């Protein structure tokens, strides 16, 4: 298995170096880098599958000359699962990139882009494989920096540079918290090896454990984009090239979920008080609800998807948090179920979010705009992209027979089973979380009804959309793979659940595969078949059957099937695209209902004709929603540091000699102190 790791390393290594050695041939550069990435990711898929099915974790180690740093890798089921997720999404993205990058050839240097993309995938793989805190942090920092460079690919634009800077600052703040968490472990064990973290000589004191919990939550939470640490996400994800956005949004933020599970369940062995789980659940619920609500108001397709990442990270954390609560009360089966639901949603979100980002990339490729209001009528022009995007949209809206439905159903069931917890407070809280999850699901459905409807249906709203053409085969292949996986994971949970159980069993200490898969695997049940059960294959069959039935009935009873092409009746007025339902109009009711949260500002300026106020010359409409977190949390913080820096300016006289004197005096003072 370690040979596979070398192959993976080799594949990515070639992908990093070769494009840089082929100057002046952008087409060849991007082809080699993407083919190398395909080799690397395919190896990763095999490695992940092998790691998931093997009984014993595989370890390998490489010494280094730097003290405390050994390049130790450990492929246990948890790591294998994330390697698999990263590689699957990476594979689809690399295939997609072959076609997609063609329209980047004049705008960015394809050699660096290809090299960075390979290095980014490699660093992510090592984040989850690392078995040494130092190595982990090294890979983690590399991942953050490389993704920053990928985000600023189109650095000529001020918007991109701003997003990149914002991302860089946020991710470094997050890393600082993670470093603190690991240093606390280090103090207890005097080793950076994860093995030592798992089995410390003496357990950490309670206070320190709480500190580790908070630090890890803040640190990994920043990367995951939980509210209120999500602010960088809607800036950074949209401006990156779309295949990079897909990888970032699909899997990079999942490495944070990996980190949380690793620390809470692996290092602490699931020994923690109930309020840890409750905190995670609370943050998850908030992120899920606010994420989808902000997504609804977005008309930039990629920003919309970025906000949905916040939502889905929230759903994953709800599963995880519920699992942690059950774990704290010793309800091991339910803890395992929560964890399993969270992990299931992790891979599902990776697949459908990557699919949607690739779809958004295809729209961008075809129309050169991210603004939904300029799309329209694209289903007829780009049927494949349309179908794939629809599958992604159905998935993310948690509708059967796709994967999003299965995992959200499992999260629901986990939350409903809270009646087994002995505390009244939690018995009350978890169903409320479930209710909010239901609201989230509905809002997500609205959001994607809007996204799909406005983009693909009706008439083209702009010349760009009118001239759009279907994207190249490689891009369709990339999306097709993900779409197929979305459906497969939806109808075949009996294949997925045993694999996930491999991960969950060592962490929660109990195997639940046999209980979750009722009736020989044909139905899913949340541990207890009497409570509820669901058979996705049957559901899928029913759906297909009812569609066929409906069609059949229409044919039988509806009479002769004729196609008649004529214009819609518009009360005598010629219909133009400007009369279509806009994205803004579509979400107007929701904006009204939740105006407390959105705090919208609507500005309508009308310029009238001088002759009569019955005729307007020009109308200007502006609509903003208040970015609450930026305004009330981040702006004051930034202002505070700004003032602090202003105060410190006093000692910054700008004189070289003065600075040298500072150093000199400090040196002498320290030397005298040392004597």
């Amino acid at each position, binding site marked *: 298995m370690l040979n596979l790791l070398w192959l993976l390393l080799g594949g990515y290594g070639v992908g990093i170096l070769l494009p840089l050695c082929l100057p002046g041939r952008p087409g060849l550069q991007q082809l080699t880098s993407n083919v190398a990435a395909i080799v690397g990711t395919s190896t990763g898929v095999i490695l992940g599958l092998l790691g998931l099915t093997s009984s014993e974790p595989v370890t390998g180690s490489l010494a280094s000359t730097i003290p405390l740093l050994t390049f130790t890798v450990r492929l246990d089921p948890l790591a294998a699962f994330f390697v698999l997720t990263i590689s699957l999404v990476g594979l689809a993205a690399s295939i997609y990139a072959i076609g997609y990058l063609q329209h980047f050839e004049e705008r960015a240097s394809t050699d660096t882009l290809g090299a960075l993309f390979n290095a980014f995938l490699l660093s992510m793989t090592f984040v989850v494989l690392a078995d040494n805190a130092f190595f982990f942090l090294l890979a983690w920092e590399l991942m953050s920096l490389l993704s920053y460079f990928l985000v600023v690919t189109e650095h000529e634009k001020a918007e991109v540079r701003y997003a990149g800077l914002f991302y860089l600052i946020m991710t470094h703040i997050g890393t600082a918290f993670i470093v603190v968490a690991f240093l606390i472990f280090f103090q207890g064990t005097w080793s950076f090896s994860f093995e030592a973290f798992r089995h410390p000589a003496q357990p950490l004191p309670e206070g320190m454990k709480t500190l580790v919990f908070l630090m890890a939550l803040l640190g990994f939470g920043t990367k995951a984009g939980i509210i209120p640490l999500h602010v960088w996400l809607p800036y950074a994800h949209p401006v990156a090239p779309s295949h990079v956005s897909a990888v970032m949004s699909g899997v990079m933020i999942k490495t944070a979920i990996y980190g949380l599970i690793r620390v809470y369940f692996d290092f602490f062995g699931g020994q923690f008080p109930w309020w840890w789980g409750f905190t995670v659940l609370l943050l998850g619920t908030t992120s899920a609800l606010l994420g989808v609500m902000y997504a609804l108001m977005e008309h930039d397709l990629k920003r919309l998807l970025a906000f949905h990442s916040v939502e889905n990270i929230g759903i994953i954390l709800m599963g995880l948090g519920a699992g942690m609560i059950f774990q704290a009360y010793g309800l091991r089966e339910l803890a395992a179920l929560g964890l399993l639901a969270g992990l299931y949603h992790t891979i599902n979100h990776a697949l459908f979010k990557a699919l949607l980002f690739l779809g958004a990339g295809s729209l961008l490729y075809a129309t050169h705009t991210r603004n939904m209001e300029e799309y329209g009528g694209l289903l007829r022009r780009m049927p494949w992209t349309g179908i794939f995007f629809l599958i992604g949209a159905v998935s993310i809206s948690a509708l059967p027979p796709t994967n999003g439905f299965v995992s959200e159903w499992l999260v629901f069931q986990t939350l409903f089973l809270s009646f087994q917890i002995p505390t009244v407070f939690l018995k009350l809280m978890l169903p409320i979380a479930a209710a909010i999850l239901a609201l989230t699901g509905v809002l997500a459905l609205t959001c994607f009804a809007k996204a799909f409807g406005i983009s693909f249906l009706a008439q083209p709203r702009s010349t760009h959309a009118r001239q759009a053409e279907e994207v190249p085969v490689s891009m369709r292949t990339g999306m097709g793979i993900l779409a197929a996986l979305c459906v497969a994971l939806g109808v075949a949970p009996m294949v997925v659940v045993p694999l996930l159980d491999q991960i969950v069993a060592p962490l929660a200490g109990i195997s639940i595969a046999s209980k979750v898969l009722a009736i020989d695997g044909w139905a899913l049940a949340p541990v207890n078949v009497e409570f509820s059960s669901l058979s996705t294959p049957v559901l899928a069959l029913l759906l297909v059957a009812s569609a066929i039935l409906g069609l059949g009935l229409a044919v039988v009873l509806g009479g002769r099937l004729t196609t008649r092409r004529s214009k819609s009746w518009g009360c005598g007025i010629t219909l133009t695209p400007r009369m279509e339902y806009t994205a803004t109009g579509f979400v107007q009711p929701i904006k009204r209902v939740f105006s407390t949260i959105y705090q919208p500002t609507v500005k309508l300026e009308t310029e009238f004709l001088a002759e009569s106020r019955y005729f307007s010359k020009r109308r200007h409409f502006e609509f903003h929603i208040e970015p609450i977190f930026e305004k009330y949390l981040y702006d004051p913080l930034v202002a505070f540091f700004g003032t602090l820096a202003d105060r410190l300016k006093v000692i*910054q*006289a*700008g*004189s*070289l*000699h003065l600075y*040298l*004197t500072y*150093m*000199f005096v400090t*040196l*002498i003072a320290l*030397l*005298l102190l*040392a*004597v």
Partner: protein
Amino acid sequence: MQGLSSVGSQLVDLCSALLLLTCFAIVAQRRLSACVDLFALQSSFLVVTAALVAYLTGNPHIYIAAGLTGIIKVLIIPRVLKKVIDHLNVKRELVMHVNVPTGLLICGGLVMLAFFIAQPILPLGSLLTRDSLAIALAIVLIGLFTMIARQKAVSQLVGFLVLENGLFLGATAATYGMPLVVELGVFFDVLIATLIAGIYTNRLQDAFDSVDTDRLTVLKE
């Protein structure tokens, strides 16, 4: 062997003392090109010291370090600095933040301070070069002081190089030299730093028609 080591130790001390002496000369010297010459002289003393240590201890890698010091600090850097000075319109340091007599007094004080600080450490060492440690510290402090006292970018650069000489002497004295890789890195850094500072000085001359680093205060917002 005891005799040889004692004589060797004396020789090392002598060379170190000469290094220190050149420092004072640099502090007292107003002419820029003479400062550079003195720096070259100091570096050649450093080469001799390092070669002596290498011979006495039988560490061949110190020879390499000594050779590199010779090439870089005695030959290349002074030549670069002379080129820079040729470009300037002022060849002498006219106004200093601290005048020469006061500067010399302060440097004397710094040497005493260095010996005072090194006093508790010296008896602990068993190396034949241990006395040089105090001298090395003194050179570092004087180098830093030169950077503060002078206004012209070139003399500040000389101050920096003197400081670096002190560090090199300290490393040789305290541990018989750093690992060769580290030393190579340091040499490279010094060379690059000098080149950059040389270019920067020329730019300064072009932009302000002067190489007074005091003028840089106008860059502040």
